[in-house]
């Protein structure tokens, strides 16, 4: 069994790289490239599914540099689902971009291969983030994701996308440098407490978490929180997030919002598990919940007055990251479970939304939501997808976000402080009002587009619908599901490990 998992991991980490090299070599025609991209995503998906089947949640796999326990498998499943979604929507997106009047890629056909290569490497670095076993390597891989995705954000090299990418690299790299400082402090604490064996190894450090110096651990936690918090997009450090999410190609926005930011949350969680026993739950929980609520609060006014469709979604992502920080910061098993589930739900629904928004934006040739009307009359199928996604991200029942949001809010109440729960509910109500107002304006009214017709083809509609339905189905039945249920429960145990 051991060898089998390690072989599958080689497949997971090997295929995207091989494909990227093939794609950037520019040897293949466009059609073959689309097929190969889908093929590599399917292979990775199948390998991850196989790992999920043979993986015993209580028995993590440990390699020299790799670690696969339930939490990393959970994250890997999220990233892989988005990888599949990316592969099955990419062709429609790229074709549309080549066909519309001001299409950028039409002028440079070799750019498609480059786009594919960068995107696959981006996914590969994210898979690496969740698989490495060393806090230092986690830092290295997180920084690598920033650099790869910066090139994707600036991919069209328009003035605004350059500005967004520059801000993204500068803000995130400075933030991540602070996280490196935090990691060095953790290493220093480890050297003081237990000596030089297994430097920064996560499993080893968790076993010896009690022995770290509390004062040092506290400083380290502050640096790590600020550093990775910047990458997550928590409130005072969020300056890069709306720009990067709104200016990058729609597929990249989906990957950024759906999987990159939660990878940063994942690394923060790994660090918190180590620092928790010495720093104390109340300190960490206070900071997480406080900054989480601040993030939600800051997103509200920007969502309400927003005109730009993708910026609105970006602020909605910020709200969801804030909610995740709250859920994971309360340190109750139900809240942590809801927080982890929310990562999955948010990733699926937000990818679907970003893709749909990108489609709408390009067909109407405007980002301004005030100029888009009558979608329900002209293109009912797209309108339904958009409506379902919006209803989903706001936490309405058919889609899975409802379950995770409900449990996070419920545990805020049961954690003892009623006022925090009421505050969170009021802020969420503000988000609902803002987003619903804009979305409904787009759906109703007199059509503004001259030629009617559906915006999305068959394959991308199917992919987007699958994402939405998967999120609902998984969340509703998570405790009964054969493989996912135990994995999620074991992940909750890992996250709670520090507190117990």
């Amino acid at each position: 069994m051991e060898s089998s998992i390690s072989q599958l991991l080689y497949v997971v980490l090997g295929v995207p790289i091989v494909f990227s090299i093939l794609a950037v070599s520019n040897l293949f025609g466009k059609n073959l490239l689309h097929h190969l991209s889908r093929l590599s995503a399917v292979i990775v998906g199948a390998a991850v599914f196989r790992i999920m089947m043979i993986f015993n949640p209580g028995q993590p796999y440990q390699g020299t540099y790799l670690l696969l326990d339930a939490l990393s498998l959970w994250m890997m499943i999220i990233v892989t689902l988005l990888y599949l979604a990316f592969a099955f929507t990419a062709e429609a997106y790229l074709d549309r971009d080549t066909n519309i009047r001001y299409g950028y890629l039409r002028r440079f056909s070799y750019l498609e291969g480059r786009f594919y290569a960068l995107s696959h490497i981006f996914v590969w670095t994210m898979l690496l983030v969740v698989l490495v076993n060393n806090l230092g390597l986690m830092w290295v891989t997180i920084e690598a994701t920033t650099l790869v995705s910066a090139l994707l954000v600036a991919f069209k090299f328009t003035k605004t996308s350059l500005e967004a990418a520059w801000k993204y690299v500068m803000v995130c790299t400075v933030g991540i440098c602070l996280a490196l400082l935090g990691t060095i402090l953790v290493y220093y604490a480890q050297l003081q407490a237990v000596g030089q064996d297994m430097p920064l190894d996560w499993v080893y450090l968790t076993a010896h978490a009690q022995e770290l110096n509390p004062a040092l651990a506290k400083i380290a936690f502050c640096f790590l929180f600020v550093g990775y918090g910047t990458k997550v997009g928590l409130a005072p450090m969020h300056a890069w997030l709306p720009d990067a999410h709104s200016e990058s190609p729609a597929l990249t926005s989906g990957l950024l919002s759906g999987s990159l930011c939660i990878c940063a949350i994942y690394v923060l969680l790994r660090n918190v598990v180590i620092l928790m026993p010495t720093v104390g739950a109340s300190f960490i929980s206070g900071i997480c919940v406080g900054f989480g609520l601040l993030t939600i609060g800051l997103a509200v006014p920007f969502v309400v007055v927003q005109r730009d469709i993708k910026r609105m979604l970006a602020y909605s992502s910020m709200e969801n990251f804030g909610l995740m920080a709250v859920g994971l910061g309360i340190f109750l098993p139900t809240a942590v479970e809801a927080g982890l589930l929310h990562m999955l739900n948010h990733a699926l629904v937000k990818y679907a939304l970003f893709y749909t928004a990108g489609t709408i934006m390009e067909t109407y040739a405007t980002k301004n939501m005030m100029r888009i009307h009558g979608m329900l009359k002209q293109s009912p199928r797209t309108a339904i997808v958009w409506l379902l996604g919006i209803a989903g991200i706001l936490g309405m029942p058919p889609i899975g976000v409802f379950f995770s949001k409900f449990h996070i809010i419920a545990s805020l109440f049961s954690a003892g402080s009623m006022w925090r729960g009421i505050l969170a509910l009021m802020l969420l109500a503000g988000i609902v009002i803002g987003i619903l107002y804009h979305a409904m304006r787009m759906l109703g009214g007199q059509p503004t587009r001259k030629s009617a017709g559906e915006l999305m083809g068959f394959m991308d509609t199917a992919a987007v619908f699958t994402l939405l339905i998967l999120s609902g189905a998984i969340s509703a039945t998570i405790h009964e599901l054969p493989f996912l249920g135990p994995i999620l429960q074991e992940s909750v145990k890992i996250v709670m490990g520090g507190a117990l």
Partner: protein
Amino acid sequence: MEYLVVFLILVVFLQTRIMELHRATYLLAVQSAIIAGSCVIVGVSSGGGGFHAFLPGLLTLGVKVIFIPWAILRLIGEIKDESEINSNINVNYSSLAAAFFLVMGYILADRLLPGTIGRDIFAATFLTIMTGLTLIVMRRRAIMQIVGLITLENGIYFFGLLMTEGLPLIVELGVFLDVLIAVVVLVILTGRMRLSFMTTDTGVMRKLKG
């Protein structure tokens, strides 16, 4: 080691005063060379000997002293309108701020880590990190911001050297790789910025708001 620290502080103070791009890059190379030197000293004095002791120093030399300044200088070579933009901030305030950071570094060293041997090194590290941050925040030119970023990174690396005699080898290799890629990405972005905006002044980029 003490001499190197004094040199480092001198270089960082000079960095706060330099507005011209070539000189800023040369200073960055000198600063990285100091880091490389202390890397070797720490490697040898910690008794490791052999290849591992010299590898981080050699890598610093290769990446930060040779490659990064070379890449930046090549970029500067393409920019013709170099002396045109003048930041209207007074460099004296920057130097004053640097002096303030140095004092604060000593105070912090006494407060946070009493009993650490490298009190001077800690203060110099703090000065380097804060100067890097100030360069990124205050200077508007893209290349100065890149220089600030590398300065910040150097400061943190020096801090790691002081506290833990460097990170584990594999992590250190990763960090070097990241710095390398970061500079490549930033140089690409700056090159495109020059084409799109006809300038490398980041102050013109203010379209995205709200």
